[in-house]
């Protein structure tokens, strides 16, 4: 693993007191490879390595750590700092209902995550309304209705095929019927699809959600940066859900998305069942990315 590789880089450093620039540079070449293999975007890696280099060079080598371990500590701490930071809780509105809107690419896990969130809120004793606003994908409405049944919450029923109207009507209905939380499930779409991005803008303008959650697959590669940046610029989101982290994808997309949008990962999808949603732990993610 990375620790082993850095150990061999620093073998010759025995007895020296300070981390010298050339030694750090060589160690960081290994770190760069590890981050790229973990799917962190190459531009984000470049910037990150630059920051770590500044912090590591000239540091006194702590007697409790080997030089390799020390560089890893600087890298790890820097990663945790980048991934964590801001509060990553969901904002519940003081005036219900709280409206949560799920957005993202096709197949990232929006519908399943909507079901998981509904289950969480129900456990806290909240009255939840799931809104199937994907009128495009075959049986998408049926899929969310099934999840609603499994969780034991209501699913909004609408005759309309217009997602903008469905969401607007759902919010009005939720206000009248005193729901605490409304979760809007939207169709997956490409960030370059102008018509569909406009549809999302109209949904957002129509319901003014407290939380827009960008749902991203943990196995996403280098494009994570462009995709997230476009969704944030075109629609604007408040937090990220990183799904399918129960696999062995290193999840470098988490760093890419945070670095380019500044928006925090709020939850992680840890399985297909409706109880498989966990809060985001920056230190666990940092260790996972470093491998």
């Amino acid at each position: 693993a990375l620790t082993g590789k850095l150990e061999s880089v620093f073998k010759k450093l025995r007895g020296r007191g300070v981390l010298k620039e050339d030694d750090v540079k060589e160690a960081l070449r290994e770190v760069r490879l590890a981050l790229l293999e973990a799917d962190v975007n190459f531009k984000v890696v470049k910037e990150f390595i630059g920051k770590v280099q500044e912090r590591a060079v000239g540091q006194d080598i702590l007697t409790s750590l080997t030089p390799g371990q020390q560089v890893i500590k600087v890298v790890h701490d820097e990663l945790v700092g980048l991934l964590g930071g801001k509060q990553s809780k969901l904002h519940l509105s003081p005036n219900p209902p709280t409206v949560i809107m799920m957005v993202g690419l096709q197949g990232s896990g929006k519908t399943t995550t909507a079901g998981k969130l509904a289950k969480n809120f129900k456990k806290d004793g909240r009255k939840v309304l799931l809104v199937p606003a994907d009128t495009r994908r075959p049986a998408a409405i049926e899929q969310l209705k099934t999840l609603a049944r499994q969780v034991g919450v209501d699913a909004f029923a609408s005759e309309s095929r217009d997602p903008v109207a469905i969401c607007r009507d759902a919010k009005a209905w939720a206000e009248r019927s005193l729901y605490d939380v409304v979760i809007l499930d939207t169709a997956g779409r490409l960030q370059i699809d102008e018509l569909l991005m406009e549809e999302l803008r109209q949904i957002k303008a129509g319901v003014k959600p407290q939380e827009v959650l960008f749902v991203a697959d943990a196995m996403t590669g280098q494009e994570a940066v462009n995709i997230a940046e476009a969704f944030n610029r075109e629609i604007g989101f408040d937090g990220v859900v990183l799904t399918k982290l129960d696999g062995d994808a290193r999840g470098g997309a988490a760093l890419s998305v945070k670095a380019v949008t500044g928006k925090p990962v709020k939850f992680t999808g840890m399985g297909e069942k409706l109880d498989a949603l966990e809060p985001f732990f920056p230190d666990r993610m940092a260790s996972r990315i470093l491998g």
Partner: protein
Amino acid sequence: LVLGEKIDESFLEELEEALIASDVGTKTASLVLTDLKERFKRNELSSPAQVRERLKQVLFEILTDRSAALSLSATPSVILVVGVNGTGKTTTIGKLARRLQGEGKKVMLAAADTFRAAAAEQLTVWGERNGIPVVKHKEGADPGAVAFDALAAAKARGMDVLIVDTAGRLHTKSNLMEELKKVQRILARELPGAPQETLFVLDATTGQNAFAQAKTFHQAIGVTGIVLTKLDGTPKGGIVFAINKELNLPVKFIGVGEGIDDLKDFDPKEFVEALL
């Protein structure tokens, strides 16, 4: 890839970054760059344009010489569709059914994803769009039982092709991989040689984890081809080079949209051109 006037350190760095940005991975990028650097040292490449041509050639050579056709000579022939969650398996089956029907084949679908909410309903819609039968059981049924019944029906009704949809599953879940092996065993037992094709459906936005996925599925059930989906988005799908090279798995089709006609034959030349 913006080409300047000379081949220098920054030019090669730019090239490496373009490759990395396409998800080819550090190993494949270094392989390709080593080839270019050696030829440059031997004075075989004297301009950025020549470097670019050589780069395309190296990538192209990794992809070619693979059988991209489907072997559907048996009656019925069975296509088993597998992959991790959300990659586009069910949608791809809908598109593939349309294409095979266009070739005059009688197609039947098997909804062997008995786990995910509304999975059978989703495949049923694709069956209706094609006007073809879909064999399904209740949610929670045994996928092997669906496969068994579908194959029996396909034989009885003189179908040319049976396409079996399976639940998405992460390759790290050994119990789910065992379930898939069981489905395959049942198909093979009921029809020697089945499944004639096992298509691994891979999302083009996937990064380096794609290799582990392909390798695990291939080791478990033997993959005969890859469908690379969502190439109508911005990802380049560079992950297929390592998969082609080290696992010998050809990309047979690409998915370029959510509609029934959005399936194309894989064209290595076009793919390499679009990558750069």
